[in-house]
């Protein structure tokens, strides 16, 4: 699988002073694959996303996008070259209408078919409303829609279900699953909702205290005694 991986990161390490938030984590994701990252609070999931997306500088390690080393590239460059992300705390342009911001991002990232993204997130009815006036769930949709504009090869989704109701969260996960396959995107999904991750992801990495506890197919990870003991066991 790693031979065809579009996103490949090795030895990703992020230190904040003496604290090692992410400790030599490897990941490889192929197009169309949804890769879940789970772990208890403080496992370094969001830090890992920040490291992959360029929001934080790596202390050590390498990130490759389509084989090209992008470790030192700026986030704007990454976005226009095929790596997009969404945020745990919804990050949209509040004063702008949904239409204006989607079009702006579409223009920047040469999206030909914005309509299909709008349709995929059922945003048609809200296009002319400012983002500050729509519900949190819809803002979330706008956030993720913006990350999918321009057919990025890699999408990093940081807790897309955060702040959504159980029902909304389930729908969002199904959605992401479908879009990932349809658009042939390599997606990394950080999520608190462990059941949701096991349901929709093709591969799963379990982080604990910044280190990889286990990584592989959902069934393998679920059966891993280390994971059961350290993480899943307490919930089973």
């Amino acid at each position, binding site marked *: 699988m790693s031979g065809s991986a579009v996103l490949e990161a090795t030895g990703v390490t992020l230190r904040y002073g003496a604290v090692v938030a992410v400790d030599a984590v490897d990941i490889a994701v192929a197009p169309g694959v949804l890769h879940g990252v789970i772990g208890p609070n403080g496992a370094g999931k969001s830090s890992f996303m920040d490291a992959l997306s360029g929001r934080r500088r790596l202390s050590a390690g390498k990130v490759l996008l389509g084989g090209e080393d992008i470790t030192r590239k700026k986030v704007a460059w990454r*976005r226009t070259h095929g790596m997009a992300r969404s*945020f745990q705390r919804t*990050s949209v342009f509040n004063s702008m209408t949904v239409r204006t911001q989607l079009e702006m991002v579409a223009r920047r990232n040469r999206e030909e078919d914005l*309509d299909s993204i709008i349709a995929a997130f059922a945003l048609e009815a809200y296009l002319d409303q400012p983002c500050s006036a729509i519900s949190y769930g819809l803002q979330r949709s706008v956030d993720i829609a913006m990350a999918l504009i321009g057919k990025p090869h890699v999408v990093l989704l940081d807790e897309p279900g955060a702040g959504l109701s159980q029902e909304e969260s389930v729908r969002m996960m199904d959605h992401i699953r479908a879009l990932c396959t349809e658009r042939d995107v390599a997606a990394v999904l950080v999520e608190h909702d462990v059941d949701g991750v096991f349901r929709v992801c093709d591969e799963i990495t379990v982080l604990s205290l910044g280190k990889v506890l286990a990584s592989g197919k959902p069934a393998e990870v679920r059966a891993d005694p280390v994971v059961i003991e350290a993480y899943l066991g307490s919930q089973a």
Partner: protein
Amino acid sequence: MSSVPTAVQTDDPTVVPKPDDGGRGMLDSRVSVGLQRRVVLRGLIVAAVVLVAGLFVPDLITSSYYMGVAADGVVLGIMAIGIGFLANRSGLISLGHTAFYGGSAYGLAIATTHWGWSPTSAALFAIVGGTLLAVAIGALVIRSTGFGFLMLTLAFGQALYAVSTLTSVRSVTGAFDGISVTYPSDSTTFLGLSQADLGQPDTFWPLAWICLVVVAFALWLVGRSRFGVTLEAIRENEERARFSGYNTYLPRLGAFAISGACASIAGVLFALKASYVSPDVLGFQLAGDSLIATIVGGFTILIGPAIGAVLYIYAQGKFGDTGNLELYMGLALIVAVIFLPGGVTGWVVEQLRRLRTLTAGRKEARRS
């Protein structure tokens, strides 16, 4: 502000207009952000009408005192709408636009008086020079925001003030004495206006008014353009803008330079009108005046600061008569900030909006 949804929302002239789809919400797959020809045309017509109407102001205001107030207000207003543009589009409040205003005023004075340039080429030189200065200072300060930006711009403005008063540059700037603007010969004119004409409010007026309308229209175009949308996105959420593929430094610098260009134009107009430039044009007082005018007028609306500037100059004259200028100006500012959070123009727009919803509600009630 919400634009009417049309099927053809593109400024690409090669795109063949498609039939209207009934204004449904779905997007045209082609991108529609930016300047639409119809909107631009409407703006152009409004600007032309306002421009022509304004030329009759000297016929309405017969008092040369009030004409002077109007002319000074418009000059300050050009700087203020530049400051307001930056505040509105980039969320940056500057106290340093005197650097470009004063810099270009000195540029004009030095080029005409010391170098013997014609006022026309001196004016061009001063505006270009002031704008380049804005690019240079902006390159250093534009990464900061909020108070940091406010203080840095103030520091640059005050540094330039200090430089202009140095004894070592006295032969160039005249230090505290300033410079009288002297044209190469008595018959030299600026766009057909003699130095005496420029000094008279009613003959100076058309020049100032045309500049104001042209600057306001240009800023309006920039604000509505794709560049303007990018600026708004950066103001709203810089991180997301970067994660959407935008370099955020250059657009902010561009906005700062545009805003500095407005101040430069105002500085040149001031020097042409006053024929005398002193360190006051770089001073803190003027920096404060221009910012207060911007806030009082309200910068949520493009021309708000210009209206604020005229009100400000008018009030200064009135309050000055009482001998307690600072006291009354201070009180007026407090009232404006507390009771008119969007400035005078923001308040007017708010009232109009309320009136509209009220009448719409009544109509609705009558129908049912």
